[in-house]
C-alpha cells in the first residue's frame, strides 16, 4: 500500500460541503451550498439539467475548482487537492472506460497508479462482485452498456475510496436494465459500505436507491431528506412538482387557529393541520397529491372530515395500473386525480359532474409568490425538466 491517505485503513468521515460556490463568468452554477453527507450513506443529488448537481459532483472529485468554499472529508479540507490525490472515485456518465485497455487493465488502472504491483486477486474479486468474471481480456467496445456500467463501477470501487461519486450512471441504459442496475447498485453499496453520492435527474431512481435525497434547483438545495418525507411533505412548489406531481391551489392563510391553519381559496374555506404548513399567513399554496384526491358523484358522499371541490371530468386516461382524471373546477383550473384500478368502484365517464375530496391530513401548505395562480400538474406523468 502506498503512503497516500486512501484505502480502507484510513478512518473516513462525513463528507461536508461548506459555503461551496462555483461561478462560470457571471453564471453561478453552485450557490453557497452547505451539505453534510453521513459516512456510509447513499445520497442522491436530484435536479433538472443545469441545476448545478454535476458541477457539485465535479468539485468533490476535484475536476472543477470551487470559486469559494470548502469540501471537508472528515476534518480535512480537500477542496484544493488535485483529483489524483483525493480518496474519492467517480463513475462517469457514459463510463469513460479506456478504449485501448482491456477490462482487466481498466479495473487495475487505479491500483497500479498507486504503485501496487500484485493486483490480480483484487481485480478478479472486483470483477466477481460485478459479475463479470470472464470478461477481463475483452475491450470495452465489446461489452454491452450494462456491462460497461459495471466495469466503470468496479474500476472505481477497487480503490476503496472514502466516497464514490456516480454521475448519472444509469442514464444510458434502457428502462429494464436501469431497474436491474438500481437494485444491484444498492446491493453493492450495502455490501461495501462506502459513501455513495449519486447525481441524477430521474426522481424515481433517486427515490428507489437513496437514503437521503437533496433536490437541487438553480445552484441551491431546495429540500433535503428521506425520499418518503420529501414526497409526502414537500418544502416548496418546485419540489412538489419535481418529485411527482401536485395540485396546488392559490390560497390565503390568516395564521394558525389551534392545531389547524384555515385558508381561503377561490371563495371556499379549507384547513390544513399546522404541522403540515410551511407557512401559516399570507399567500400560500394548498397542495394535494393527485393520488390523494378521490372522486365521488355527489357532495353528500364525501366522507366526514374530508374537504372537497366540485367540477366536471374533462379527460380520463387509462394507464393500466390507474386511471388519471382531469377535473375542471368551477373557476377553470384543472386538477388531476389518480384512481387505482383496483376493481372496486367503476370508472367515471368524461363529462360527468364530480366532487373531488381529500383528507386534510394529506394536504400541505407551501409558500406562494403573491399573485401566482393555481399550479396544477395536468396530465404529464413525468415532472417537467426530468427528461435530459
Amino acid at each position: 500500500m502506498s503512503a497516500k491517505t486512501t484505502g480502507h485503513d484510513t478512518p473516513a468521515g462525513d463528507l461536508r460541503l461548506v459555503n461551496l460556490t462555483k461561478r462560470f463568468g457571471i453564471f453561478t452554477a453552485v450557490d453557497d451550498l452547505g451539505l453534510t453527507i453521513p459516512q456510509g450513506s447513499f445520497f442522491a443529488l436530484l435536479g433538472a439539467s443545469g441545476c448545478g448537481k454535476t458541477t457539485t459532483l465535479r468539485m468533490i472529485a476535484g475536476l472543477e475548482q470551487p470559486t469559494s468554499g470548502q469540501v471537508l472529508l472528515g476534518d480535512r479540507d480537500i477542496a484544493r487537492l488535485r483529483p489524483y490525490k483525493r480518496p474519492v472515485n467517480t463513475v462517469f456518465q457514459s463510463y469513460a472506460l479506456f478504449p485501448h485497455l482491456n477490462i482487466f487493465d481498466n479495473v487495475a488502472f487505479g491500483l497500479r497508479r498507486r504503485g501496487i504491483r500484485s493486483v490480480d486477486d483484487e481485480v478478479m474479486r472486483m470483477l466477481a462482485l460485478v459479475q463479470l468474471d470472464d470478461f477481463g481480456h475483452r475491450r470495452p467496445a465489446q461489452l454491452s452498456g450494462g456491462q460497461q456500467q459495471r466495469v466503470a463501477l468496479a474500476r472505481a470501487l477497487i480503490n476503496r475510496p472514502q466516497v464514490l461519486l456516480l454521475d448519472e450512471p444509469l442514464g444510458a441504459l434502457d428502462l429494464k436494465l436501469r431497474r436491474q442496475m438500481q437494485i444491484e447498485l444498492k446491493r453493492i453499496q450495502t455490501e461495501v459500505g462506502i459513501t455513495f453520492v449519486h447525481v441524477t435527474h430521474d426522481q424515481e431512481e433517486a427515490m428507489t436507491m437513496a437514503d437521503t435525497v437533496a433536490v437541487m434547483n438553480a445552484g441551491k438545495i431546495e429540500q433535503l431528506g428521506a425520499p418518503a418525507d420529501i414526497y409526502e411533505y414537500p418544502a416548496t412548489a418546485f419540489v412538489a412538482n419535481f418529485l411527482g406531481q401536485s395540485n396546488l391551489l392559490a390560497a390565503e392563510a390568516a395564521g394558525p387557529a389551534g392545531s389547524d391553519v384555515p385558508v381561503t381559496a377561490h371563495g371556499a374555506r379549507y384547513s390544513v393541520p399546522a404541522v403540515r404548513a410551511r407557512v401559516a399567513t399570507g399567500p400560500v399554496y394548498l397542495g394535494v397529491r393527485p393520488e390523494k384526491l378521490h372522486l365521488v358523484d355527489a357532495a353528500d358522499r364525501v366522507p366526514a372530515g374530508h374537504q372537497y371541490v366540485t367540477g366536471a371530468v374533462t379527460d380520463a386516461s387509462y394507464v393500466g395500473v390507474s386511471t388519471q382524471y382531469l377535473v375542471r373546477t368551477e373557476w377553470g383550473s384543472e386538477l388531476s386525480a389518480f384512481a387505482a384500478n383496483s376493481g372496486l368502484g367503476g370508472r367515471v365517464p368524461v363529462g360527468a359532474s364530480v366532487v373531488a375530496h381529500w383528507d386534510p391530513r394529506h394536504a400541505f401548505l407551501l409558500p406562494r409568490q403573491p399573485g401566482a395562480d393555481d399550479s396544477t400538474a395536468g396530465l404529464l406523468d413525468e415532472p417537467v425538466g426530468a427528461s435530459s
Partner: protein
Amino acid sequence: MTALAHVPTPTGQPAAPPPLPRGGRRRLLPYLLLLPGAAWLLLFFAVPLFQLAAASLYDPSGSLSTGYALTWAFGNYPDALQAYWPQFGRSFLYAGIALVLAVLMGYPLAYAIAQKAGRWKSLLLVCVVAPMFTSFLVRTLAWKTILSDNGWLVGLLRDVHLLGPDGRLLATPVAVVLGLTYNFLPFLVLPLYASLERLDYRLLEAAGDLYASPVQTFRRVTLPLSMPGLIAGTLLFFIPATGDYINAELLGTPNEYMVGNVIDSAFLVRLDYPQGAALSFLLMAAILAVVFVYLRRAGTEEVL
C-alpha cells in the same frame, strides 16, 4: 491526403469542453505549445508573402547581380498582365473546364461509393486515393504514353473517326485539360464522398414516398445536402489546378502554357523577379476573387 477532406468543412464540434482551471502556468501553456509551429508558419509562410509583395514592386530594370531597388513600381502589374494575359486566361479556362469535367465524373463516383458500393466501399475508396500513392510527375508522364500518337487510344479514336487520320491528343489543350482533371480529381471526390456518406438513405426514400421522381429527389434532396462537400471539393480542385504548370509542360506545348509556366521561367530562367512576383500576386488575387465570388453565390461563407 485524406486530411484534405476535413479542412474546409467545419466539423460538428462536440460540446465545448468545460473550462479548465485557471492558473498562471496553465494560461501560458497553450502559447508555449503554439510558439514553434506558429513561428515557423509566420516566418516561412506569412513573411515571404510580404517579401513577394515587395519584390513585385521592385525596379524592373534591376537584376539579381546588380541588386533590386524597391521603387514602388506598380507598373509591373499592368506590364506583366499585358505581356502574359493569354497564359493567365488559359490558367482559368483550363482549370475551369477541368473543374466541370471533374464534377461530372466525381459526383457519380462519390455517390456510388457512398451510397451504392456496400461492402466494396473501402476498396473503391482506396482506388480513389491510390493515384496519390505514387509520384505526381511519374503519373503525369504515364499520360504521355497513354496519349501518344502510336498508342492504342489515339488509334481507337482514329478508327472511329473521332480524330482525323493525323489527329493527335498529346501536345494539345485536350491533353492538358485531361491531365489537370486526372491529377486533382481525388481532391474533389474525397470531401464530396464525406458529405454524401453522411446522407441518410431514408431521406431519399422519404422523398420518393412524397412523390419526388429520381431527378427531383436528386435536385431537391441529394444535391442540397451534399453542397458543403461539393463546395469544399471544387475549391480543393480549382486552387491547385489554376496554379499548376506541370501538366502544361509535360502534356502540352508552349501554346498551352499556363501562368505557372511563365512564373517558373521568370524566377528560374529569365531571373526577372519583379515580373515573376507580380504574376504570382496577380494569380493569388485572381484566385481569391474567384473563390470569394463563388462562395458568395453558393451562399456558404462559413466554408472558409
